């Protein structure tokens, strides 16, 4: 199998630049990176078709190996259409993100940050004296015991008893 060196170099540069841009936090750069990566992949597909040849329109006088391989080109066409629609959609949501929050950056997941920063102590599950959530406590006792409070008080024996 012969490979076109120019195409190979272009492909390598596009992959390198695309991956660099993809790792940026700015969304427009991410889109540009994705566009470069898809184009590099299209060139890779083209390269798998072997050396250039005649257009694959059947003529019985021409030997089969003189034709170009049409299958990778069909793949590339499909892939171009798909990447076109995805890029259009990406631009749409980036614009929406800009309209909503004047943001062109990948945002943190707030719920994830919240879960990560919470203490591992959970009053209901982890207290030494289990938190009393029963409905059957007589009302006068329930008023005396402030056990349903959250946080460090559950560890303090004087407060929980």
């Amino acid at each position, binding site marked *: 199998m012969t490979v076109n060196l120019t195409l190979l170099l272009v492909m390598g540069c596009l992959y390198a630049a695309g991956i660099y841009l993809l790792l940026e936090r700015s969304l427009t750069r991410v889109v540009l990176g994705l566009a470069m990566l898809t184009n590099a992949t299209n060139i890779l597909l083209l390269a798998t078709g072997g050396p250039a040849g005649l257009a694959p329109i059947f003529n019985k006088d021409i030997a089969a190996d003189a034709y170009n391989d049409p299958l990778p080109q069909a793949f590339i066409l499909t892939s171009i259409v798909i990447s076109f629609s995805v890029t259009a959609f990406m631009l749409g*949501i980036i614009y*929406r993100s800009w309209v909503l929050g004047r943001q062109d950056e990948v945002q943190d997941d707030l719920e994830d940050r919240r879960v990560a920063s919470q203490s591992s102590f959970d009053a209901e599950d982890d207290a030494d004296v289990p938190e009393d*959530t029963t409905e059957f406590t007589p009302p006068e006792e329930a008023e005396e015991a402030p056990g349903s409070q959250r946080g460090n008080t559950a560890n303090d024996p004087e407060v929980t008893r």
Partner: protein
Amino acid sequence: MNTASLAPLAVVLPVLGAALAFILIRHQRAQRAVSISILSVTLILEVVLLSSVWETGAQAVNLGAWLPPFGITMVVDQFSALMLVVSSAISLSVLIYAAGQGMADGDEDGPISIFHPTYLILVAGVSNAFLAGDLFNLYVGFEILLTASYVLMTLGGTTPRIRAGVTYVVVSVVSSLLFLISIAMIYGATGTVNMADLALKLGELDPATQLMLHLMLLVAFGIKAAIFPLSFWLPDSYPTAPAPVTAVFAGLLTKVGVYAMVRTETLLFPGDRINTLLMVVAGLTMLVGILGALAQTDIKRMLSFTLVSHIGYMVFGLAVASVAGIGSAVFYVVHHITVQTSLFLVTGLIERRGGTANMDRLGGLARLSPLLAVLYFIPAINLAGIPPFSGFLGKLGLMQAGVDLGTPLAYVLVGSGAATSLLTLLVMARVWNRAFWRTPEDAVHPDPILLATSSDGSSLRSSENVNEHATGRFSGRDSVDLLPRTMVYPTVGLVALGVALTVAAGPLFSLSDGAARDLLDRTPYIEAVLGEGAAQ
């Protein structure tokens, strides 16, 4: 004419339905009727396909009469037919649930009218991926379902959905690119993308080349299936979508990735070259996923983590690579699609009834709505694997397959599977204790809707008295049904389907074992595509 020639209709019908639903975009009722009836017809068609394939084994259709390996081939075997039937049954019930939600809320127009066409396109993509007989058609199937899922994920374009949508789109595009690069490499190495043809030609390549192609495909599918080191995008993006969308994503999308992994592992790359790697990854997926679920307070996020965790069981069955292992994995996929989807649908109902999906703010739902409690309880203990439910049977089958294999690593996997099952029970019981069992007053900041009573003192049925409690959810509308029957019935149906899997576990196991035998044998698939005697 054999029945398998009906197979392309499983893709064509939803696409045509989507076009029709697009035309009817201003007529909500007609749109609902069209999409529900199209999916029902598709489901019936796929049941016919399954019953015919059950008798005859794998069958292939050549589109446009182009002979394999040149044209596009669609292959129905027991595994793909089973997946088609389950996925259509699930998508139909979720569609009815979503239509019920739309009817209850009375949204006459708005961005939701795009939901029905997009949803049908998603179903077409899933069916196409299950039926694809060549790698490139599998890629196209993935792209159809992913593009539809981008739209569904960002429905309405609110800030949290856009934020989650960006991550989801970028991760999915990267995984699709990796898949496309692998296809290019495989085509460069063998000159074909037809899977049956590849099954014969890949074995002739240099082992190092084979390993590289194998690992590239595995990484691409690993991202889609959310396997441990590649799973971090999932709990970040799924919970923000609307409840029915999250439910169908959780049920189907990761399973398409699992399907593609099973197909490539058994058909294209047989042998135990990377089974050790798969085992390690499966164990880590189970444990890391369920430990993540323990830390969550939002029920949707918690369920997303259990979803990741239970993908580990399927990978475990695949790594064992025996008939018992793969058969149990197929059974587990069917069980998990049903149960995980019903749990997400129930969470949608909890959020609607209780005003929030944060379990710290919920309470007393068992008294407010006993039916909701039953609907949560059954799939929850089914997921955790309590006998006699299908989750128990699937896990038991996987563990038996692991013990039969008998290597030290297999025993470690059996142990971590049991630990994951127990931790799942713990996570599910926490939701039960907080959201259903305790009184609303015990919650830290109970949602006002939990404490509200209707004017005659009975429990609340609609939102008529809730506006004054300033939840803001129903502002501007007179009276919204809190638990509309159109949403409850599909959930009941899905929970009943989960129970039916337990009752019908015998026939289902014989079907999944038959599918596993054909998958490991490879000959039925190859001969169905390339003709008799091709597999020699």
